[in-house]
C-alpha cells in the first residue's frame, strides 16, 4: 500500500518503508507513530491520503 502526502506529493510505500528516516521496510501505515511528519515538507500524518 502507498500513501501520498497531500501537501507535497511525497509517497510512503509500506513495502519499501523509509529506512533513511528510521522506518524499516514492511512497516504498515497504521503502525507508524501518529507524530510522524512528512520527510519532504513536514506535514502531519493526517495530511496523507
Amino acid at each position, binding site marked *: 500500500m502507498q500513501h501520498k502526502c497531500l*501537501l507535497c506529493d511525497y509517497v510512503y510505500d509500506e513495502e519499501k518503508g523509509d529506512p533513511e528516516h528510521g522506518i524499516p521496510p514492511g512497516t504498515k501505515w497504521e503502525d507508524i507513530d501518529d507524530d510522524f511528519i512528512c520527510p*519532504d515538507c513536514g506535514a502531519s500524518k493526517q495530511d496523507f491520503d
Partner: protein
Amino acid sequence: MTKLVIIGTGLAGYTLAREFRRRDTETDIVLITRDDGSSYSKPMLSNALSKDKHADELVMGDAAKMAADLNADILTNAHVISINPQEHSVEIERKAEQAQEKTSNKETISYDTLVLANGANTINAPIEGNAANRVLSVNDLEDYRRFRNELNENKRIVIIGAGMIGCEFADDLSNVNADISIVNLSSQILGFMMPEQAAAILQEKLSEQGVKWYLNNSVSHVDNDPDAHSNLIVTLKDGTKLKSDIVLSAIGLRPNLSLAKDSGLDIDRGIKVNRYLQSSHKNIYALGDCAQVDDLNLPFVMPLMTCARALAATLAGEKTAVRYPAMPVALKTPCYPIVVCPAPRRVDGEWDVEITEQGVCGLFKDSSGSILGFVLMGERTKEKTALAKQLPDWLP
C-alpha cells in the same frame, strides 16, 4: 487565554489552528480570511496542470468543513482594516454575501491572542504597455483558477523569471503542450540556489521539452495585438517581440507587512518575531511567509510546519522555542529531480561540484571545508537526508 484570532487561512493559519486544537479543545478560535476559506496546498499549484487538476479539485476542505473540523469560526471574504493592539481588537470589513443588505458590514473582533498568518504577495515587475494589467501570477487558488481558465484556449506562454516557481511552471506547462518562453534578468537560471553547471543541466532538460530562453533580458512592455485582440505582444528590453496568449510573472514574493506596520509592530524583511514567534507586541504572534524568525524569512512549507507546531505548543501553555535544522527543498521539476538546500544567510564559500551519470552533487563549502549548503540532482537526490544532517542548524 479564551480567544485566539488568526488572520489568514493558508497553510500557516490552518495548520496552526489544527495543531492548537489538538492540544486545547476549549479556547475559542476565530480565523479571518480575505478569500473563501478553502483549504488547499499552495505548493501543489505549480504542478497541478499536468495532473489535469481544476482549482476545485485542489480544495481539501471548504470553509464550512474546516470550521466543523477545527471547531472554529471562520470569517470569509473579510478584509482586515486595522489592528488595535491596545484594545486587543481587529476591525474587519466583510463583503456582503447578500446584495440586499445595505447596512454597514464592518465588525470589531476582540482577541486575547492574535496571530498574523497573512502570507506574502507576488512582486510585480515594472511593466508598461496597454495590456500590462493582463500579466498573471499564481500565488493562490483563485489565481490558479484564472490562469487555468485562460489556458483552456491559449497555449503560448511567456514566463517572467527563471527562479524556482518559474522553472516549476515551465516544466508543468511543457507537459500540457504549451509553447513556453522564459525571460530572465540574469544569464543563470535559479539564481543563487545552485552553481552554474548544475543550473545549466536543468536549463538543458527544459530545453529538450521545448522551453525557449531569453536570458539577460526583461519584459518592458505588454500590449494587445492590434491585429488579433486575444493576442499579446511582449516586448523585451533588447527589442525582441514575442507573440503570446498568456504572460505569467514569477519573480518572487514579498511578505505582507502593511497591516503589521500600521499596527506599530517591528518589521524588517518580514514581521519580526522571536524564537517563540512573538512580535514586538506581547499578545501578537506571526508565522509563515509573512514572518521573520530572528533574521530568517523562509517562504517554504517545512519551516512553516515547524513554526506552527512550536507556536501551538506555546499558545497551549507549553512554551516552545522554534528550532530550524537545515531544511532541503525539493523542486517540482519531474523532468529532472532536484533538491536544493541553500545556505540561509549570505556567507562566503565555493561550490564543489561532482557531475556523473547518476546526477549532480554540488556542495557549497566555506574556507575551512565545512558544508553550508548543497544541490542534488537526478539519482543523487536520494542523499538529501544524510547530507542535511551534516549541515549546521539554521536556528539552533
